[in-house]
């Protein structure tokens, strides 16, 4: 009896709640999964960073705060050498890749389709499609032949390999920027008798600069982080920071690795934050 009488009231209450709470976009449980996902993305990084400040020799037993391992990494000559090598390679590779990618973007965007354009796209995007390990061993084979023939074992191999896989990463943001630009200003400049090069230098390049900058930074991060291709291309004594770390992981791990990781993590986060806020400003 009671249930029957209270029925309509319950429906009313439910309706009220429904109207207030019902949201078209809500999917039950999705927010929970999302929170778990965000937690899982960042949780593993916490111990890594925390134990880099550990006083003791262990990466699992906390013995008090110290910057000891940062000091020891800083003074370790192998780490120093690897860090300098990483920076040199990343600088050269990102500069070359950005210049070539800018030119390629100018040659493939805002132009009538021409024969061979698909091949050009395929070649530029190849490093994104072919698994890194395949490119790595292919480079190992080719460079082994060249090393044998010329007896040259220098940095050039690493720089050219890094330049190649950085090109698509530099190319994509530059191309996106170019596609968003119309050419009215350039036509106006040409109408005012500006020579093509001057039009490029005074109009196209300044407008393109945010894209170029984003591309260069992405290329730098990608080169700095590369493990697989570097591991297979490097000659003896040419460890970069990531390959040095990979080698160390086989031995007993000390918090020194955590310290190096934390620094690299910091650099990546800083650069990505920069790119992110720059692209946001551009969007506004």
């Amino acid at each position, binding site marked *: 009896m009671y249930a029957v009488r209270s029925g309509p009231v319950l429906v009313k209450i439910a309706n009220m709640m429904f109207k207030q709470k019902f949201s*078209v976009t809500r999917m039950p449980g999705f927010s929970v999964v*999302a929170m778990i996902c965000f937690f899982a993305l960042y949780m593993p990084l916490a*111990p890594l960073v925390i134990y880099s400040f550990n006083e003791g020799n262990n990466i699992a037993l906390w013995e008090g705060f110290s910057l000891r391992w940062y000091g020891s990494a800083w003074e370790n000559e192998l780490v120093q050498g690897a860090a300098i090598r990483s920076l040199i390679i990343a600088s050269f590779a990102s500069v070359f890749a950005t210049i070539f990618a800018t030119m390629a973007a100018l040659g493939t965007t805002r132009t009538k389709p021409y024969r061979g354009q698909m091949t050009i796209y395929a070649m530029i995007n190849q490093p994104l499609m*072919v698994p890194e390990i395949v490119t790595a061993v*292919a480079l190992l084979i080719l460079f082994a032949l060249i090393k044998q023939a010329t007896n040259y074992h220098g940095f050039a191999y690493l720089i050219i390999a890094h330049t*190649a896989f950085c090109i698509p990463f530099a190319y994509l943001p530059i191309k996106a920027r170019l596609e968003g630009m119309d050419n009215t200003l350039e036509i106006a400049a040409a109408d005012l008798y500006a020579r093509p090069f001057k039009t490029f230098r005074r109009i196209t390049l300044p407008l393109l600069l945010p894209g170029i900058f984003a591309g260069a930074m992405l290329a730098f991060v990608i080169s700095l982080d590369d493990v697989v291709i570097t591991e297979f291309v490097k000659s003896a004594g040419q460890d970069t920071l990531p390959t040095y770390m990979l080698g160390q992981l086989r031995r007993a791990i000390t918090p020194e690795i955590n310290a190096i990781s934390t620094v690299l993590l910091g650099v990546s986060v800083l650069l990505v934050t920069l790119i*992110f806020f720059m692209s946001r400003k551009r969007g506004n």
Partner: protein
Amino acid sequence: MDKDATQAEEKQNTNLEEVVRQQTVRRNILLTTPALVVLFIAASGPLLVMFLFSFLTPGDYGGVKWEASTQAWFQVFFHTDIFDDTVSIADAHLSILWRSVKLSGLTTILCFVLGFPTAYFIATRPAESRNFWLFLVTIPFWTNLLIRTFAVLEIIRNAGVINSFLLAIGVIDAPLDMLYTDTAILLGMTYVYIPLMILPIYASLERFDFRLVEAGYDLYASRLKVLKRIIVPLIKPGVIAGSILVFIPSLGAYVTPRILGGGKNLMLGNLIELQFGQGRNWPLGAALSLTLLAIVMIALIFYVRSAQRAGAGKDS
């Protein structure tokens, strides 16, 4: 006379147009040349050399002898006994191949199961806070893969955070042996590649018109039905793109299985490396690499096909 003049002028005009067009094409080709040269030297060219190497004879101490042979391709699939020359299927290679495909597939599924709700969550936030959540996904995406794998290694070790926590709350009595198992590789790859699933799905959802969902509810569709019949079909291109972006690098993964699989749970990438190290069989390594590449190409063709189909479905 007059007619001739206009015709001549027209001819000149078309000539001029043709000249300009040719100039632009020449300019475009000149502009793309440096990038293409570098890519040819360090990306496509090496693949051609590797193709050649897969038909040579292995050298005694690595490298090759310049003698043609199809032995390497034979060895990818078959195994010849060193004592009695009986030929059998190369179980070791095929089981590693199968493990690679299986783990990559599972990684893709796990990434979708976790990544789709996350992308949905981000896409349904107010526009101001969306960028913040997106930023949280982008950061791990651009941080070093090695460091992230190393972070996973640290938390799933016997003395790592997960085991310490589970022991402390009394769920388990002894640490779980997670490290150096297939599960470890699966967890590691999911962790490393999940942003590649979230970002394209988010991109599709961002363009998704939520009024369609409203219409679905108006027509008394249940939540599940709205999800299955309206949302998922319309964001399918994003799901397919995300799946391919996760599947392909998983298939060629080298660092993650090497660190989390501990050298006994190999994947294709590690098997390939082995041929250039202890295995000293470069042609076999080359043939295995090309096999991996072939699988990736099949996946890509599948992707292009289904993307086209999804695109066509939307129009009709």
